[in-house]
């Protein structure tokens, strides 16, 4: 029983991390058709900010967490302003190359200016202890991660349904020009999309750092790769798809970890991606692909 619950918690925690990051990718993609490959570097910025905040002798972990999330948001919005705004209306390939370039530049900056080696941050270890849930012991960190993700998803949904900018973002995914023709500034829509994307990356960063305890220039690579897969599974550009894809990927990953014999342990990802490939064979556009018709635009 305990084993099953623990594995479910594992799946939820993995899934939550992927869902947070996949949502961040999907939000940006849905309004500007850009796969933001620099999303991983935004997570790394959060990680390094934790190092800096801890080194500045902020003993209060809440300050360290707040600083990391703030830095991720600022980094994301800055990237939009500096790198993506000039290619905003360019063709998708240009955007893609820009995102790759930005990702490389940031990674190299981390390598040159900080260190290629992992730097340990201990401020977040307090998040991890063992909680007794009716006789079953689960990890507090995993519980927090799942809960935080659910809260974030609900808040995001409220934002998208209840605020003018939220409506504008949803509408912009189908017809951005018409949103501008309603008087909503495109700059605000892009800024808010990157802000939310950065916020989600920052929150994910806190949990990644709490689990790994160290940051290196490639901190975000693996999580964002998985998030990208989650987006593809869910249907790229669909926000519910990103969430579904994230949790599904977490579940498949944990199932593989549990079911594969020890000798194949190193090949979990290969099996996971194999299953995903089969899934895409069945549903090439992902599970919740956004409808391809763009209103009545054309």
């Amino acid at each position, binding site marked *: 029983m305990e084993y099953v619950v623990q594995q479910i918690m594992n799946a939820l925690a993995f899934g939550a991390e992927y869902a947070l990051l996949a949502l961040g990718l999907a939000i940006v993609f849905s309004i500007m058709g850009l796969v933001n490959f620099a999303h991983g570097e935004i997570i790394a910025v959060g990680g390094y900010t934790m190092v800096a905040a801890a080194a500045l002798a902020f003993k209060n972990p809440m300050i360290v967490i707040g600083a990391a999330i703030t830095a991720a948001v600022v980094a994301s919005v800055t990237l939009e302003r500096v790198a993506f705004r000039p290619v905003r209306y360019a063709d998708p390939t240009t955007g893609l190359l820009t995102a790759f370039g930005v990702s490389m530049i940031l990674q190299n900056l981390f390598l040159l200016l900080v260190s290629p080696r992992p730097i340990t941050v201990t401020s977040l270890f307090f998040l991890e202890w063992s909680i007794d849930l009716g006789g079953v012991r689960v990890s507090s960190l995993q519980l927090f991660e799942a809960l935080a993700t659910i809260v974030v998803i609900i808040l995001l949904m409220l934002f998208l349904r209840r605020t*003018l900018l939220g409506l504008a973002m949803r509408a912009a995914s189908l017809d951005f*020009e*018409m949103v501008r023709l309603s*008087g*909503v500034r*495109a700059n605000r829509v892009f800024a808010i999309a990157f802000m939310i994307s950065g916020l989600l990356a920052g929150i994910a960063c806190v949990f990644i750092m709490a689990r790994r305890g160290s940051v290196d220039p490639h901190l975000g690579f693996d999580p964002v790769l998985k998030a990208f897969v989650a987006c593809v599974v869910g249907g790229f550009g669909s926000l519910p798809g990103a969430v579904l894809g994230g949790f599904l990927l977490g579940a498949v990953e944990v199932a593989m970890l549990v079911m594969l014999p020890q000798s194949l342990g190193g090949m979990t990802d290969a099996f996971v991606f194999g299953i995903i490939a089969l899934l895409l064979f069945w549903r090439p556009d992902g599970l919740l692909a956004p409808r391809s018709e763009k209103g009545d635009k054309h």
Partner: protein
Amino acid sequence: MLRVRNLRVYHGIIEAVHGINIEVPLGKCVALLGPNGAGKTSTISAITGVVKSEGSVSFEDRNLSSLSVEDRIKAGISVSPEGRRVFANLTVEENLVLGGALKPKCRSDRIAEWFKTFPILGERRAQPAGTLSGGEQQMLAIARALMNEPKILLLDEPSLGLAPKIASQIFEMIKNLKQENITILLVEQNATQALKLSDYAYFLNNGHILAEGKPEELGGREDLMAELTGIT
């Protein structure tokens, strides 16, 4: 007054409109007629700033040429675009809220007004706008365009693709707007109906103004009317 001077409109390197002059005086309804591909939508797009153009567009003696799309809307221009372009994934009500982005004051009162005017939209307020029929989407598109309380409304082929009966409902709606002294630039291929509503008319073909004048003068020109497809 909206004044378009020597307007040239470009789609990439193609020049679609070759230096036209149009004026829409305050409180008037001006028709812009012409067959498919004449450059009507290009003209509208140049006025709202979504395509590249040369020449000048001014509104209330203010030159709009260097303004962004958003600033032109803020200056009081609003458009019900060709093909309606309602936000299909938003509900009817959300479409109206977003349409009134610049005028949050009393927005819900104005939405309630519209639901009274068009009960069918009221009934479907919580439905995605994409589920509406063509005529309903057109009503919604016009209502949405008016939510920002614009000083001038640009209507791009509001009757396009609608059954004659539905189309006359839309023209009825435009007539009511006219009675409220809303300034309108009406782009149409349905000349008969558009000329009935307008105070002045231009005839555009191949990016040139072929003729302009009182509606009855233009309506009498057999040669022009023959150019138009889908005359009813």
